């Protein structure tokens, strides 16, 4: 009797194991009871939509500043334009990682922040007066880096830049192009925000399953991709020469304005805030549902340490290292590239935490591969 019950227990146990095995792997279910919908709500309502709202508002300011400067080029107006450019660019850093929905459809990031801008092509394009900014060929001739070049780098001194715009009278290719760039940024951002506000928010929140096309799986993949490619490689690794035989001072973000560090810090902070489910509009210490609370829920322990805490510790370590960098990474790469490499290393440590340990804990499969590079 006892023996028999032991056997049936064993059978029941193995059936259980089989079923769990199935639900884990074949059906792609996460096997946890975490409230993914609540997390998606927090993401959409408290982080993503407010983030785009701020971004759109800042782009309106940028547009006005461009209009003012191109109508009356002056030192004051140039300075206001530069501040507006920086504000909008900083807001962009908080939403660049959300390449989902309309942003994905537009490939928003490719039209917004591709640097270095191709100055040769850009000048040719302006001169031709004939361009289609929606063409893939024009992605490296627009967005924040192109505007930055026009308001910081097109001439050697501020006065010469002002003069360039002052001298344009009948034919105004530079004025027109600068206005077109600012318009396009605003139009694209409006279209993304509008989409979130008019239906996509519900689609996003309701797609709360755990299959590869679910909102959580897709956005987490986008988030890690952004961390790896845009934050780690684009802002730090590529200029520091991690992926090539030599350093590339010309490939830093904020090349002409010298704002590399401020932009990087904003990006890093936004990535950590999103991890913690923290709204950009909140000063509260208590944060909403996010990847941190999800990891706490499934109680992930890596080498005796809590993974969620470990990731935050690593974000902070990267920030502390980056604090030591110069404002303009071009100077930093030229003078002491080692510090750039050390920052890269700190960022890289979190790639392992996020891409391997976190994804395993949350049972999310990576949907992108590292680029081949040839």
């Amino acid at each position, binding site marked *: 009797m006892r023996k028999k019950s032991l056997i049936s227990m064993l059978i029941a146990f193995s059936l259980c194991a089989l079923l769990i095995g199935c639900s884990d792997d074949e059906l792609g279910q996460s096997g946890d009871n975490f409230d993914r919908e609540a997390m998606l709500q927090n993401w959409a309502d408290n982080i993503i939509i407010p983030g785009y709202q701020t971004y759109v508002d800042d782009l309106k300011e940028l547009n006005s500043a461009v209009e003012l400067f191109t109508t009356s080029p002056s030192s004051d107006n140039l300075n206001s334009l530069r501040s507006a450019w920086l504000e909008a660019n900083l807001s962009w850093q908080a939403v660049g990682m959300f390449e989902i929905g309309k942003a994905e459809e537009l490939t928003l990031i*490719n039209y917004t922040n591709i640097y270095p801008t*191709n100055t040769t092509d850009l000048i040719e394009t302006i001169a031709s007066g004939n361009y289609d900014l929606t063409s893939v060929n024009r*992605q490296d001739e627009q967005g924040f880096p192109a505007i930055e070049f026009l308001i910081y780098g097109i001439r050697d001194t501020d006065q010469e830049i002002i003069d360039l715009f002052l001298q344009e009278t009948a034919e105004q290719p530079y004025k027109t192009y600068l206005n077109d760039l600012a318009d396009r940024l605003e139009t694209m951002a409006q279209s993304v925000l509008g989409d979130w506000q008019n239906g996509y928010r519900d689609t996003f929140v309701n797609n709360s399953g755990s299959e590869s096309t679910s909102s959580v799986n897709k956005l987490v993949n986008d988030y890690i991709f952004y961390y790896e490619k845009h934050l780690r490689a684009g802002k730090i690794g590529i200029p520091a020469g991690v992926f090539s035989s030599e350093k590339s001072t010309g490939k830093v973000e904020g090349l002409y304005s010298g704002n590399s560090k401020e932009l990087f810090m904003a990006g890093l902070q936004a990535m950590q805030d999103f991890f913690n489910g923290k709204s950009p509009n909140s000063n509260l210490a208590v944060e909403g549902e996010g990847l941190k609370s999800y990891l706490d829920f499934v109680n992930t322990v890596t080498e005796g340490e809590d993974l969620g805490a470990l990731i935050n510790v690593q974000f902070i370590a990267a920030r502390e290292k980056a604090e030591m960098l110069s404002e303009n990474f071009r100077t930093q790469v030229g003078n002491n590239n080692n510090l750039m490499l050390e920052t890269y290393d700190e960022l890289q440590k979190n790639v392992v935490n996020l891409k391997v340990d976190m994804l395993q804990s949350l049972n999310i499969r990576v949907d992108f591969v590292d680029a081949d590079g040839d």
Partner: protein
Amino acid sequence: MNKNKLLLGLFLGTTISLTSCGDDGDDPGISISEPATYVFTRDGESTVSFSGQTTRILMAEEIIDALKESDLVDAETVIDAMFAHVEGANDFEDASLNTSDKSVRSKTAASSDFFSANTAEAAAVKEDFDAWIAAQVMEVFPVWDTEATAGVAGQIQEAGGGSIRYINAKGLEYNQAFNKGLIGALMADQILNNYVSTSVLDAGTNKEDNDAGTVADGKSYTNMEHKWDEAYGYAYGTAASTASPNATVGADDSFLNKYIGRVKGDEDFAGIAADIYNAFKLGRAAIVAGDYTTRDTQADIIREKISTVIAVRAVYYLQQGKATIGSDNGAAFHDLSEGYGFIYSLQFTRQPGTSMPYFTRTEVEGMIEDLMAGNGFWDVTATKLDEISNEIAAKFSFTVEQAGS
């Protein structure tokens, strides 16, 4: 009783030889220990030599560079001359290549097993490469700066300010077809179907000479040793350390070495670079020891693994292209052009233990025809790319998913 003893003896003999197989030829008469590195000496002098292979890899590097020089004067004649170099002609920037009597074209589709009695097909392959050079110069160079559209050659940029690709009317980059095609037609064909083949290793009196330690005229190596080294040179001829090349495998050339490195980087195929190198090493040691069974076992390992590298990359690029087609055609067409070259290379692969490639030229032409139908890459569908991927993977021990990521 006598009869029984004889049977027993046979039985024991069988056991020993079976054991020896399992131990990679470690039988009583011959003992091979796998060397740590690809270093072999005779009387204190190195017996390893593959300078001809290094030369051809370097020549091929200059040719693929020239295929991107749209402002080259008299380009077709110049590139043709590089491809079919004649000793003393001033074809290359690297002056030491100019004095060489080697040429890339003469060894393209020129293996003993596949092409010595099939010169018609060899000529057809050479003509493919000639045609890619001519088409690059005539169709693509003149429209280098204009934007390509379906049915119209020109340039196309990858998204995100990415690389600019120069394509024909169907989206194909001829330089990629040439580059990746050469991995099959030169490197793989020479290794798998020529230098590790018994037809070459055992030609003439090679076996007797090797057994007796008779070296080639004025050289430190036997002919057989040298043939094996020439195979090795097509994989590692430009390695930073030719004795121990795996430290930099993937970074040493733009051809086979590069893609052994790439496939090694995919965790589904992590051990493959070590397998290939070890087979070269052990096979060479077996030649020194006169153990031709072990040598041929290693030759088959090399055939299987290098064929796998080519097939994995063919599937990889089709799948990569599938992921971006429509949204980022610049990137997609580049991947598909590389895929095109690797598919082309499949006709030079070799199924171990046979005299057959994994895919015949006719089969390869069928796949390419499918890929290039209508407006080629502008028209190709995800379904079609999956079909071709599946067709390739089905002949190998990997899945499309394993190769595709």
